């Protein structure tokens, strides 16, 4: 730093630190406004019904878990089944995405074959193509296959690398892995599959973790695909179940609704706490949408 800026800093020291305090105050106030709805939802789930709309306080007068019991059993068949469904679909989606997208990304970055750049350009094209162009025929296709009202339409596409975004994410990562490793392995007589399993995958922990977490969260949160493909309440995901619970409970049992709302976002919240860095870095480096 030059002398000029030093003296400048010293002169404006007081103004500087008071501005800093102001920044903290504004940011803290903004954080509270941002978080208040969430905290209200969680705290309402612990309140008895008659207290939710009569007090704006976040702290319940008396904490009760009744709403969780009522909510859990509120939907015919219970919420347990729905949590199992959502978990199953989300885990299968993660597995499907990791396998199929890493294979494609490996082919696009490390292998040579006829038409590779052509396919790669088309893959990038699907990245920006709105889903609406394919939505209806996909539905008709799955209907004709007899897959509607099963989890297959939600899971099988993930094994076919339909989420081009993850291919793109992995392509970016694989490009950063040193090529010397592959070349050495080829010298040793390794084929492409061995290189994929023994070299690429073991080095890809970070990108796989990012893809897995986002894949899980997006599938867990997804509402549209389950809405059109799942009809029976036994097959519902938690998002669909919560929505019918909201519709069926109408105006009566708010705290049970808040309790189930809280439960459906709880897994996401846990993942957020556990993988915060990963999520934020994933967004910062790739500009992911959420």
């Amino acid at each position, binding site marked *: 730093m030059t002398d000029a800026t030093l003296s400048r800093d010293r002169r404006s020291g007081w103004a500087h630190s008071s501005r800093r305090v102001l920044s903290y105050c504004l940011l803290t106030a903004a954080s509270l406004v941002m978080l208040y709805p969430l905290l209200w939802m969680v705290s309402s789930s612990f309140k008895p019904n008659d207290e939710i709309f009569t007090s704006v306080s976040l702290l319940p007068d008396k904490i009760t878990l009744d709403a969780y019991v009522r909510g859990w059993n509120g939907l015919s068949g219970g919420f347990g089944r729905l949590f199992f469904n959502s978990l199953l679909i989300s885990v299968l989606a993660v597995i499907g995405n990791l396998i199929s997208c890493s294979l494609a990304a490996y082919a696009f970055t490390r292998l040579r074959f006829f038409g590779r750049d052509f396919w790669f350009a088309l893959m990038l094209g699907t990245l920006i193509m709105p889903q609406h162009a394919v939505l209806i025929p996909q539905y008709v296709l799955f209907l004709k296959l007899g897959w509607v009202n099963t989890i297959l339409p939600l899971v099988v596409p993930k094994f076919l690398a339909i989420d081009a975004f993850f291919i793109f994410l992995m392509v970016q990562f694989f490009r950063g892995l040193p090529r010397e490793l592959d070349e050495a392995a080829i010298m040793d007589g390794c084929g492409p599959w061995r290189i994929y399993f023994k070299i690429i995958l073991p080095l890809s922990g970070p990108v796989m973790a990012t893809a897995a977490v986002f894949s899980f969260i997006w599938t867990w949160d997804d509402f549209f695909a389950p809405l059109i493909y799942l009809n029976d309440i036994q097959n519902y995901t938690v998002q669909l179940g919560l*929505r019918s619970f909201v519709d069926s409970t109408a105006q009566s049992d708010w705290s049970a609704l808040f309790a189930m709302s809280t439960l459906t976002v709880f897994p996401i919240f846990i993942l957020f706490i556990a993988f915060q860095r990963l999520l934020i870095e994933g967004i910062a480096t790739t*500009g992911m949408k959420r």
Partner: protein
Amino acid sequence: MRARGPAGAGFRRQVANYSFLIPWLIGFFALTVGPIATSIYLSFTDYGLMSPPQWIGMENYVRIASDDPRFWTAMNVTFTFVLLSVPLKLAFALAVAVALNKGLRGLAVFRAIFYLPSLLGGTVAIAFMWRQIFSRDGLLNRGLEYLFGYDGPGWVSSPSTALYTLVLLAIWQFGSSMIIFLAGLRQIPQDMYEAASIDGAGRARQFFKITLPLLTPVIFFNAVIQTIDAFKAFTSAFVISGGDGGPIDSTLFYTLYLFQEAFVNLHIGYASALAWVLVVIIAFFTALSFLSARYWVHYDD
């Protein structure tokens, strides 16, 4: 290929390498190319799932343009939503990112708090919570009554305000854009600010002459992503309106109308035409932003 063996070995290598792409190729043809072609075809037919599609030429498109008031309502709702939510969301995201970028301690905590809503915001639970906040007896009206003695209307049940609660919900999810802005701000060399302040440039001037121009590529990127996303918004409108885009179609997002036509009324042919109109609109706006970029986006090299 570097190692040139006999032709047979090269071919085997090609096949072996192609095999990695098989899942993607199957998905690409069965779930992307095939459906695109099918939906173009279906958009020129009258099809209701029960009987085979009947070719009716341009009729669906003519009806959309000239004889479908709900289409124009949906367009109006969607454009209002996009034009309000995207600029406001980006403005908030940028303002908070700039405030966070001053080397404050606790940056990670604030960043996490501001990001959390965008991670949860698309869920049914949050949409339902939002509905409760802005309902007649909801949290907002309780608060207004408590603070000012004002008895507010039912914000989500009134056609004149329902859409704005959805705009607010979208703005509340500014976190992911903020993170991208923060990453962009980090790229701006600190010595530019030092040089500017030696030259006597104030903070506002620094912001408009250094920060904003150097950040235009990131602003552009965020604007494109958020615009496309806003056109596709569905879940929150569906849950808050109870699935029908009400009250009196005031939250009838284009996607909601499309959903109703395709999966409730089973007007598959007509809905396919509606879907293509949306795709063309999104493509048009994306192309427009890329064309406009050369006039306002500042690239270093």
